[in-house]
């Protein structure tokens, strides 16, 4: 076998420390006595040309390039191999610059080290095999998970750019958190009205045909990689056809079963078949299976009989299905939730009446909420005094160390809305810090400060505060021991990732930060990308943010998708993959769960595992895991690795 060693001086970078003459001398005793060609800067235009010419005239069977790190120029030299008509995988690089010349003082030692490394590479390259790259056309379509502001913006913008989008939302409605609010900071816009045009376009606009909206749905499995994901989505039964329902509500009126409505903080009732709350989109009710009397064995069909649109709109037999979609990229827009303020002692949430967290209070403010927008205590009266406690579980090492960033702003929004409805009500803000950044937030803040019925009190630690019932049955807040009556207490708990972020992260292998939010590839440079290529982040799932930022983040994720996955683009698949030797696989199935890319499937008929070469990243995890030695890692076979080690240690 003819082997060529191409030794790069890299100017003086390598030449100063490693004697090429000694390498030439040593190579005489290497297996197959390779020829040695000394070049300056093989990576330069001139160097590459000379390298290619030499490959063409010498026609070696295998090539070793002793130069810099393969991270720098392996791709360059592989291209030269291809240009010279050779298979690029017959090349082995030795990093004698970073790993030898730059880190070894004594030239004698450096030369010896380089000779050993090159001998290892020669041993290995003899066993290397030509490998072929597969080509695959990318799928330009996207999967968006979460139909809050960020997800809706992303889905609609992608559809406008001509892409097909699957939009998966786990609740029965779209709009995320803000559709449940009445008015929004900073400009006190009506929340459902502000979102309506976006939601309308999404459902019925010119591009709606390209958006496949799946409500009451969740992602259950993803295989594949950037440009070529296969997603499995579980569609729970709504029992109401979104296509045919006109949202008249006759079914709900006829339904005999009632329960408390979770979408109204369980502060009002709903029927087993009902809307999440008035005005939701898509404008269709959904059935709560466990509440429906049929689940208790009764043979009720009141809703079906009441439907004026015919017998096909309500399907009481509908069952859960799992559908599969091929997409090129995934946008995570799963948003946020609130920290359970019941974990913060002394706040009284859940144990005292008239203590609400901010989401519950947003529902009270909302004209579609349980009190139709009336601010009232449990006994139905208007509160004479309201306490708003900021930073509940935020900026607190015992709970969440970060500032949630938006609570101060909605707290002053609350101040405004309460004052507007109940001008005589005394409002006390208990705050630790105050966060009202940017060009707009100060307006509501100033209004609160100037409101003569408002008082701002700073506390040190949340343990300095306690909400309790006074002897007269009124609530009171003690701050540093000082007591203040309050008829209504509103808590502003930390913003935390939406429930289920952990399982999504496991499913997609996307990292999360110590607070559980999805981790950005880089907090400044690449804040719309996750740690997995082709999976983008948008909105409050990556950290607390307001609607403006969530919408912008949605657009940023769209930018990545559009720029990266143009229709017709071809991606090349690395041939460095694992392959199961079917004559050795005994079918123990140990490898299946080991693969981080879900590239291994089990063929139950043949009783053998099989690696999907398109999905395999060649990481080698299964190769080491296979106790039967039945999986080969192409380009990193045991024989190649042993030959390299032997060459080095000789």
């Amino acid at each position, binding site marked *: 076998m003819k082997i060529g060693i191409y030794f790069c001086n890299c100017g003086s970078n390598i030449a100063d420390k490693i004697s090429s003459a000694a390498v030439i001398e040593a190579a005489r005793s290497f297996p197959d006595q390779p020829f040695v060609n000394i070049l300056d800067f093989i990576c330069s235009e001139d160097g590459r040309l000379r390298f290619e010419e030499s490959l063409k005239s010498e026609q070696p069977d295998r090539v070793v390039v002793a130069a810099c790190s393969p991270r720098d120029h392996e791709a360059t030299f592989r291209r030269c191999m291809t240009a010279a008509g050779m298979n690029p995988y017959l090349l082995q690089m030795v990093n004698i610059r970073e790993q030898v010349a730059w880190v070894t003082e004594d030239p004698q030692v450096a030369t010896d080290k380089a000779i050993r490394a090159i001998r290892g590479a020669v041993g290995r390259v003899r066993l290397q095999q030509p490998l072929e790259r597969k080509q695959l056309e990318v799928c330009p379509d996207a999967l968006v998970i979460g139909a809050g502001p960020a997800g809706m913006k992303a889905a609609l913008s992608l559809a406008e750019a001509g892409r097909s989008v699957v939009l998966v939302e786990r609740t029965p409605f779209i709009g995320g958190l803000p559709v449940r609010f009445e008015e929004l900071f900073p400009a006190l816009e009506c929340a459902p009205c502000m979102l309506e045009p976006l939601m309308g376009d999404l459902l019925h606009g010119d591009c709606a045909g390209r958006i496949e909206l799946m409500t009451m749905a969740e992602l259950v499995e993803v295989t594949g990689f950037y440009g070529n994901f296969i997603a499995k989505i579980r569609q729970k039964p709504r029992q109401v056809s979104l296509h045919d329902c006109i949202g008249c509500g006759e079914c709900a009126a006829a339904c005999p079963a009632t329960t408390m409505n979770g979408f109204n903080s369980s502060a009002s009732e709903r029927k087993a078949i009902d809307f999440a709350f008035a005005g939701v989109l898509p404008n269709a009710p959904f059935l709560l299976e466990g509440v429906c009397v049929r689940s208790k064995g009764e043979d009720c069909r009141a809703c079906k009989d009441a439907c004026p649109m015919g017998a096909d709109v309500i399907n009481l037999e509908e069952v859960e299905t799992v559908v599969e979609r091929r997409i090129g990229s995934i946008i995570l827009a799963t948003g946020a939730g609130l920290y359970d303020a019941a974990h913060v002692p002394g706040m009284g949430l859940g144990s005292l009446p008239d203590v609400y967290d901010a989401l519950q209070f947003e529902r009270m403010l909302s004209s579609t909420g349980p009190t139709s927008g009336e601010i009232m205590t449990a006994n139905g009266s208007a509160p004479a005094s309201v306490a708003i406690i900021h930073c509940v579980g935020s900026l607190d090492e015992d709970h969440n160390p970060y500032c949630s960033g938006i609570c101060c702003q909605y707290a002053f929004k609350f101040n405004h809305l309460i004052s507007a409805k109940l001008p005589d009500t005394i409002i006390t803000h208990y705050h630790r810090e105050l966060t009202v950044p940017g060009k707009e937030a100060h307006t509501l803040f100033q209004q609160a400060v100037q409101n003569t019925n408002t008082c701002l009190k700073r506390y040190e630690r949340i343990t300095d505060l306690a909400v309790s019932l006074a002897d007269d049955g009124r609530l009171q807040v003690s701050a540093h021991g000082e007591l203040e009556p309050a008829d209504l207490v509103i808590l502003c708990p930390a913003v935390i990732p939406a429930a289920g972020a952990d399982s999504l992260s496991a499913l997609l292998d996307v990292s999360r930060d110590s607070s559980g939010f999805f981790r950005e590839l880089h907090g400044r440079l690449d804040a719309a990308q996750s740690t997995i290529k082709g999976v983008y982040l948008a909105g409050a799932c990556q950290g607390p943010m307001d609607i403006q930022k969530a919408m912008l983040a949605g657009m940023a994720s769209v930018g990545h998708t559009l720029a990266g996955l143009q229709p017709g683009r071809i991606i090349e698949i690395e041939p460095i993959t694992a392959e199961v030797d079917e004559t050795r696989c005994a079918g*123990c199935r140990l490898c299946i769960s*080991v693969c981080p890319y879900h590239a291994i499937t089990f063929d139950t008929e043949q009783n053998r595992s099989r690696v999907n070469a398109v999905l395999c990243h060649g990481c080698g995890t299964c190769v080491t895991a296979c106790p*039967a030695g*039945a999986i080969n890692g192409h380009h990193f076979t045991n024989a190649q690795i042993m030959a390299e080690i032997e060459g080095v240690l000789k």
Partner: protein
Amino acid sequence: MPEKPKLAIYWAASCGGCEIAVVNLHEKLLEVDAALDLMFCPCLLDTKKKDIEALPDGAIAVTLFNGALRTEENVEMARLLRRKSRILVAFGSCAKGGCIPALANFTTTDELLATLYRDNPSLDNPEALIPAGTTSMPEGDIHLPALLGRVLHLAQAVEVDYYVPGCPPESHQIWNVIETILSGDLPPKGSTIGCGTLTVCDDCDRTKEDKRITAFRRSYEFYPDPTACLLEQGLLCMGIATRSGCGAPCTKANMPCSGCYGAPDGVSDQGAAMVAALGSVMDIGDTAGLSEEAIAGRVDAFLAAVPDYAGLFYKYTLASSTLGGRVGSSKSTPLSPPLSGGKCSAPPLTRGGREGLTQVPDCNLSKQSGEIAE
């Protein structure tokens, strides 16, 4: 009538189980006897060593050699039988990989002898007598063969033609081996015969699912589900890293495979393969947000259920494994000329080959007091 080809069955450091496995051929033994002349088998016949020495070289057609090499005498017999046999088979796990005798390679011979003859709680040996070497008695001298510094498997002392795995080899496989040899249609020299080509999982008919193990458990702790994969139930079943061919009698008896058929072809180290495999499917739960120490703590807690890694993973193959034995034991003496004064010393770690034999230390029987334990 032409002479029948000669068959020898020899035992070195072994338990006798291999002979029993041969006897378990039952009536097939008659066929063996019809085809071969079983002329040497210390367990069954009275042939003496001098009778073998008297044979011309290559006179024996096949020797099934079982047992590991623990003493100088074992090595001597291995060399003698190699010379006299046309086919030498390392028969059973001791001859093939060292098996249980080779677990002694985790200690020095000094420690071994001290544990066996001096520090053992069930012993009454007030004079701390350690048997070794030559002892003079009124009736004359008694010679005990010296211990080797390390237990070897057969191929570390002599050239081996074929290997038959098993502790002991299953009788139906012994028959296959004999048939193969009689047929004359022999596989390439150095092959492992009398076994399958896959792993025990292929023999085992339990239902296998994708594996994620949330805790290791031991046989005494519960009755395993007789139909589900034992490993998936947390039992450390070695079947995944063990050569097939036995027919999986252990898992059929609801016991995990302990690995006696050794690694399948293509796997050089059964214990390492097992460790790599288990490490890949151990499920220590969600580690998001945990510190490195906390993660390490979870791994430790998980592994606390395995009391004896070496005995579990290298029970049958330590001598032939990459690991070989313990390195740098405080008591292992470096390679040095044979010591006098009754001390046994171990040659340094060897990996296969014959180096281990060149320095066979001399151990004299003497009254050894504190000397050994220094």
